[in-house]
């Protein structure tokens, strides 16, 4: 269990992490979500005692990281930036870490095997690809067979094969009952792996909720209808009291009726349909709404402001929070 208590970090005037309080619960995958610059990496470095908090506290099983003896046997971490000497072989990198925590040397071979680096174990890591680097980082995290694992943006910059591999790895670790705390700036990534979500923006806690709850509160479902007779459809819907919103590509979006009902209605009025499809607003959108107010670097590429008729940025979250 990892407990954060009003954890705060300033870099000069910049407040990177702002009174974060939450608990990483044991035995599940917790997603740590936030846009770039939200303070995820800084928080994780503080968990590991690498960055010293400006204020507040973070404890691993009730202890400060610096008070852990042989910490690699409690908690393993894959950090964002690479953390090894490129002139040292993968084997020796892992061996020196193992020795410092009195982990038996044969374990090095085991983790190299687990991550599939055995054939390049004796090569200097200088020539490693991004994917091989991530594997080495994961091997280091697994070295002490820890119950708790931290992964900071583990799939960043990886090819689809690498992403797939890491996802399966995390699922496997969780299935073994380990605590996994994984950060990402992509909701889609979390949706696939996390059971619990902690969302931050500009260093502040925005949500601490189970994935199921987050989906229930944030995933808007609707039916998309496309027809060559928009006027007729609009009238038919209107007569039954169903509201339809025109979407930008000429289709209609209906949230207060189900597809079957709408199909029958169209048949009744002899309206031709080109599309009738139930839709689920993506969690990505929900996440964007939640964090939009806190996004540090807005894209200034002429992006449109939120479309009319949609809830304003951040509104959705406030509503569900009040609910």
């Amino acid at each position, binding site marked *: 269990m990892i407990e954060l208590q009003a954890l705060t970090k300033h870099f000069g005037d910049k407040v990177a992490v702002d009174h974060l309080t939450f608990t990483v619960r044991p035995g599940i995958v917790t997603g740590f979500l936030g846009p770039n610059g939200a303070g995820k990496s800084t928080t994780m470095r503080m968990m590991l005692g690498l960055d010293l908090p400006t204020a507040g506290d973070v404890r691993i099983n009730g202890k400060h990281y610096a008070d852990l003896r042989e910490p690699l046997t409690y908690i393993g971490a894959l950090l964002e930036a690479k953390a090894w000497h490129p002139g040292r072989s993968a084997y020796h990198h892992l061996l020196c870490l193992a*020795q410092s925590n009195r982990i038996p040397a044969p374990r090095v071979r085991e983790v190299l095997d687990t991550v599939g680096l055995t054939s390049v174990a004796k090569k200097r890591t200088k020539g490693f690809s991004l994917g091989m680097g991530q594997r080495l980082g994961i091997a280091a995290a697994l070295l002490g067979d820890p119950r708790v694992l931290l992964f900071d943006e583990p799939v960043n910059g990886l090819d689809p094969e690498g992403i797939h591999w890491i996802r399966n790895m995390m699922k496997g670790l969780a299935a073994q009952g380990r605590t996994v705390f994984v950060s990402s700036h992509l909701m889609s990534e979390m949706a696939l792996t996390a059971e619990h979500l902690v969302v931050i923006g500009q260093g502040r806690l925005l949500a601490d909720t189970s994935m199921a709850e987050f989906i229930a509160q944030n995933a808007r479902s609707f039916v998309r209808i496309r027809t060559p007779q928009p006027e007729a459809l609009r009238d038919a819907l209107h007569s039954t009291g169903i509201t339809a919103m025109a979407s930008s590509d000429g289709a209609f979006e209906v949230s207060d009726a189900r597809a079957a009902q709408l199909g029958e209605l169209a048949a009744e009025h002899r309206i031709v349909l080109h599309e009738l499809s139930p839709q689920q607003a993506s969690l990505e959108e929900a996440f964007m709404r939640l964090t939009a107010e806190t996004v540090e670097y807005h894209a200034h590429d002429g992006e449109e402001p939120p479309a009319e008729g949609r809830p304003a940025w951040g509104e959705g979250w406030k509503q569900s929070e009040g609910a």
Partner: protein
Amino acid sequence: MAATAAVLKSEWTKIRSVRSTVWTLSLAAVITIGLGLLISLLANNEFRKMPLQERLTFDPTYISFAGMGIGQLLMIVFGVLVVSNEYSTGMIRSSLAAVPQRGQFLFGKITIATLLALVVGEITSFIAFFVGQAMLGSHRTQISNPGVLRAVVGGGLYMALIAMFAMGCAAMLRSPLLSLSILMPFFFLISNILGSVSATKKVARYLPDQAGQKIMMVVTRNDGRPYGPWVGLLIMAAWVAAALLGGYALLKKRDA
């Protein structure tokens, strides 16, 4: 105790598994011995042309260590790289995540690197002495003469201490480039200049290298240093201690 042993073992693995250790230490040895050989040979050939004053204070032991001035620079590179590579590569984050007791990490690393520098330094010093004496012909001295063994053992101690000083500075400065660009010119030029300019001469004698080099001298008439060989080495050790404490104090409170 067990934890300390584990950290030492780990640091030994680190130091032996990168190439910079091998090339800096072997270059330090080769340069110190090689230059000592050349300069001893030259001194022997030119002895009769030397001014009387120099002939009277001729120190055959110290002349065989003439390569130390350049050789120490490689020891400095060794010391700087051992520490600052942790920062320049990002390894420091793995290291401190594995050993969060920062003092134990830093002093474990420095202990291992110093022991290695000491072994290489002593071997280098003894070889430089015997090779140098072999070149000096009739002007040579014997290891059994008063003060000579102390000077030769001291040569190895000096090399280890200068490497330690570099480690302390690198722990404070973190960047290998910054550390080297301060330490190399300082020990190659600035210290020597300060030592020969009359205005700064007296103060320069207390700089780490000038104080430490006293241990390698046997004939010390007119060397202008108002302290003996061991006190000189102690002055150098005080500098080293200050650098290490500074490095530790900064490591303790800085983000990795």
